[in-house]
């Protein structure tokens, strides 16, 4: 596999790819946790992601992976612990503010603006790239048209990543499943993130589509020089593109390391296959 990357420790005792070592990590979480009522959903979650790392978050169903995404994007406010995005704490921010800070995400159950066109979906992602205010939009000032034109050009550029330019006018809800997943990724990219969270991007895809998706995730990382954290059950994808992998079970980290370490970790095997599998 082409992505053999050496992981090296950073001061906070986590590991990130060697090439990112002289840059500060994009994301650090310290002792992150959330309780729902009495239930401890996530506890003592520590993760560090390098500037251009493709990281994986895996674990059995119900382990709390999506909850961690919801914590990172402040959909849920954490009960304890801190999230540092590019060294700055996101404590108390709204989800929309976290997005402006640089985290964009996709959803496990696709959440597109389904009555709007593909183009409009991307344009919503480009919301903050446009600099006119509502009054100048209503009055149709010249800079409104300029800003809109630039945004549309940018949207077409983004669509071209997945060769979706000719779908620009289609209604998002009417797209085939795979295209909807791709559009969701593009919409997230439109917000100009420094960390992209993908929640099961390969769900419902066949092996050849998954293969293509892997290529595209790598391409996106190289193009935009961003970090990617993905939740995925498809181990071929995870082992194929992730540089660092974090395994969670019952809301706790049970293993961290590169794909080879994870593959051979008895604790991970036990979590997935039960005690017998470990023998």
């Amino acid at each position, binding site marked *: 596999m082409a992505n053999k990357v050496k992981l090296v420790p950073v001061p906070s005792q986590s590991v990130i790819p060697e090439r990112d070592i002289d840059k500060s990590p994009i994301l650090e979480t310290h002792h992150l946790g959330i309780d729902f009522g009495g239930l401890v959903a996530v506890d003592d979650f520590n993760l560090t992601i390098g500037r251009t790392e493709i990281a994986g978050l895996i674990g059995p169903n119900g382990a709390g992976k999506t909850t961690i995404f919801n914590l990172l994007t402040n959909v849920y406010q954490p009960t304890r612990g801190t999230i540092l995005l590019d060294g700055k704490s996101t404590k108390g921010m709204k989800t929309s503010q976290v997005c*402006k800070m640089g985290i964009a995400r996709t959803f496990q159950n696709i959440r597109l603006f389904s009555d*709007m066109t593909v183009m409009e979906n991307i344009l*919503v992602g480009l*919301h*903050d790239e446009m600099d006119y205010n*509502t009054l100048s*939009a*209503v009055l149709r000032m010249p800079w409104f048209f300029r800003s809109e034109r630039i945004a549309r050009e940018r949207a*077409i550029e983004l669509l071209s990543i997945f060769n979706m330019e000719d779908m620009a006018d289609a209604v998002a809800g009417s797209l085939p499943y795979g295209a909807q997943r791709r559009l969701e990724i593009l919409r997230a990219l439109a917000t100009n993130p420094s960390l992209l969270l993908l929640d099961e991007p390969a769900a419902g895809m066949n092996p050849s589509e998954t293969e293509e998706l892997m290529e595209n995730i790598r391409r996106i990382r190289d193009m935009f020089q961003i970090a990617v954290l993905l939740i995925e059950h498809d181990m071929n994808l995870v082992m194929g593109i992730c540089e660092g992998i974090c395994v969670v079970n019952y809301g706790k980290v049970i293993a961290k390391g590169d794909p080879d370490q994870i593959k051979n970790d008895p604790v991970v095997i036990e979590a997935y296959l039960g005690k017998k599998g470990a023998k």
Partner: protein
Amino acid sequence: MKTKKMTLNRNARKNYLTYGLVIAAYAILQTMSTTGAISSSLKGMLVPICAYVVMAISLNLTVGVLGELSLGHAGFMSVGAFTGVTAAMSLQTAVPSPVLRLLIGMITGAVFAAIAGVLIGIPVLRLKGDYLAIVTLAFGEIIKSIINNLYVGVDEHGLQISILTNKLALSDNGKIIINGPMGITTIEKLSTFTAGFLLVMVTLFIVFNLVNSRSGRAIMAIRDNRIAAESVGVNIVKYRLMAFVTSAALAGASGTLFAMNYSTIIANKFDFNTSILVLVFVVLGGLGNMLGSIIAAAALTILPEALRQFADYRMLIYAIVLILVMLVTNNPTLKGYLDIAKQKLVRKKPAAQAAEGGGDNGK
């Protein structure tokens, strides 16, 4: 590169069509009314039709574009009507031009309705779905109750306001404007069909330009998927409030226009039934479809009048028509028949269809 231009054009085309049809309708009706070709009862309905059209477009912004059910839209119309008329009446001597007074009245009405929109919107928009709907209903009823118990008068010292009982101490030159449950009884009829037409055009301009901008897209994104909109950086509270307040302000201007077409107006005119009436226009015209709202508002305002020959049965027929239209347009089986009929109709003009299709896909 060309595709995006086409998108802009297609959106714009529908908007221009709407502007065009409104202008054409105005031109025809205005000519007919000056030449006496339309009945006096229809002539008397021209201004209310414009007011209801504005109400329908503005409510469509809340229901169709923002996606929240409001059952108290008449409340904003009421605020606009009473504040706007008060402004116009108290400036009777200061501003001699009636056109200017009407304009000031409408702006005052819009501003006060917008203020009411902010005050109501902040608590209301924290709720969801049917709970939000019932709270708008509650606010509509509260506005009605308050205005029913409001006494406003004007004399050389300025405006005087009292609530519950008439405690106004007006000088001899003073006059009472809002007289509690009696409402306003001495309105100057300043509204004209032309003023109504212009308000419709301004409303369309504001709504179309708002919807086709980053703000409008943000509003629609919230409607389609609130969580996703938040995740791409849309400030939910700001844009929901923006849509709600814009809608309220336009309803306020419409209220002034409506009230200044009559010599008396009472708060009970703007009750729950009026809110529902406007909601019916919006749903029949199609959510988010402004042209549909205009047509539905105009047609359904005229319909009871057109059914006059059925005398006592007319509201019954109105109800049956309403139910049947909803059944035909929403029942899967009946809708199937309708679509087949539509296709047959469309097949008659394949050339036009092909041209349009070519335009959309052309690269």
